[in-house]
């Protein structure tokens, strides 16, 4: 893997620190007029999401992390692992629970996900921004309510629970924003 000089630092650059892959969030050059220059960086651990501060002497080099984002199609869950496929090469990859994390509840078969690979292995999974899902359970709403004020919980086919307007019923298909976990609209199928 390539090494990077502090002069190449910019947000988004993936580097290795203490054996873990990190992404640079912020990079600041600090230098006393007559002395040692430093790069103060905020870096996000790509495994845990935790952001920490690090400092390098300017001009030092750091090992790059082999981290790439790819689009993969979600196939199925075998009870332990989530299986994905590269639609160009048909290569299949498996992701464990640590990589899938909260995305699990939004994964519906055939969904195209952004998967971050570290040394070719899934490190994290981002579901599509919007998913279309069927409601499997929700309390019957009050008749005549069409505005959606208030709302009620609804369980989706993947087990995710979202708040939906009172007029939305079991068996209906809805669109959800996975970034906020919020109901967007009903979908006519």
């Amino acid at each position: 893997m390539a090494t990077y000089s502090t002069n190449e630092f910019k947000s988004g650059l993936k580097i290795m620190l203490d054996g873990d892959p990190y992404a640079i969030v912020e990079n600041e050059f600090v230098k006393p007029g007559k002395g040692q220059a430093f790069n103060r960086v905020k870096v996000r651990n790509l495994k845990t999401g935790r952001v920490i501060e690090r400092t390098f002497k300017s001009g030092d080099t750091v090992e790059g992390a082999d981290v790439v984002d790819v689009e993969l199609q979600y196939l199925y869950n075998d009870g332990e692992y989530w299986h994905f496929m590269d639609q160009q090469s048909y290569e299949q990859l498996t992701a464990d629970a640590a990589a899938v994390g909260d995305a699990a509840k939004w994964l519906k078969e055939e969904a195209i996900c952004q998967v971050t690979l570290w040394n070719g292995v899934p490190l994290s999974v981002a579901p599509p921004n919007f998913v279309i899902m069927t409601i499997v359970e929700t309390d019957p709403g009050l008749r005549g309510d069409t505005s959606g004020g208030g709302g009620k919980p609804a369980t989706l086919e993947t087990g995710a629970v979202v708040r939906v307007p009172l007029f939305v019923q079991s068996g209906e298909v809805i669109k959800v924003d996975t970034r906020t976990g919020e109901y967007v609209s009903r979908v006519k199928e």
Partner: protein
Amino acid sequence: MSSSSWRPGAELATLRLRAELLARVRAFFAARGVLEVETPALSAAAITDPHLASFSTVYSGPGPRHGRTLYLHTSPEFPMKRLLAAGSGCIYQIARVFRDGEAGRRHNPEFTLLEWYRVGFDHHRLMDEVAELVTALLAGRLALAEPERLSYRELFQRHLDLDPHRAGVAELAACAKRFELPIPPRMPADEADPWLDLLLTHWIEPRLERGRLTFVYDYPVSQAALARLRPADPPVGERFELYVGDVELANGFHELGDADEQRRRFEGENAARRALGLPVMPVDEHLLAALAAGLPACAGVALGFDRLVMLAAGKAALDEVIAFPLDQA
């Protein structure tokens, strides 16, 4: 390249303020009988300081310098001292200077230095004048508390309870750990200055009081290559820095006039460059000859003009006060 990338990064109002401040600087020195001078930006000699990187270019002729590598100055200090030795009296210059490898919120690789020399002043008297100028230029734009003056030792004692002149690397490293500073890999085990710089930039500077001019003076000898030394225990370099809030604005010296001592320091810095794998720089023989001929006792200071504009305009970054910073140049 977006369709608006030709536009200046700074607002026009800021550029007008910049011009006004330049005019006021000139008026300030005119009223005091300090002569404005201009010296070359390109020189066959260069600064030896391992922490400064000069841009270089090659002159293709004609004339005796044909084919020579020339360096863009990082400050106009050396030729200004030649003028002083030639009897110019007090002088100032507003110079565009160049430093490779420096870019960030408060750095641009080319920037404007206001540099001036006062014959007969020591560094304390020059601090008085710097305070007057800066206070006058920022008046009405930035609420300023009474300037404070403290030695480098007092600064470290106040913020870190540490004597910077006596602490060894182990003690400095322990201090950095105690204050939970991020410690860079490959810090030297035998050199205190990078550790002092780490403590200064990561702990002390962010804690300097906003809206106050803080002068720090009497630096470790190893951090004052162009300053006079004063025998003390331990000896100190008669150098000072001005901070406005946490912004480092100016650096000054009670100037070293001893040519032999200056040559030894240049050679020491070049030896340090060699050890670091950095290019050895050609020493300014004209400067050394001028010092040998006699530099009048004087103090000099270089002030980052762009940072001054940044403070006056209430901006947070240099790219808001420079019409076309590097990435747009």
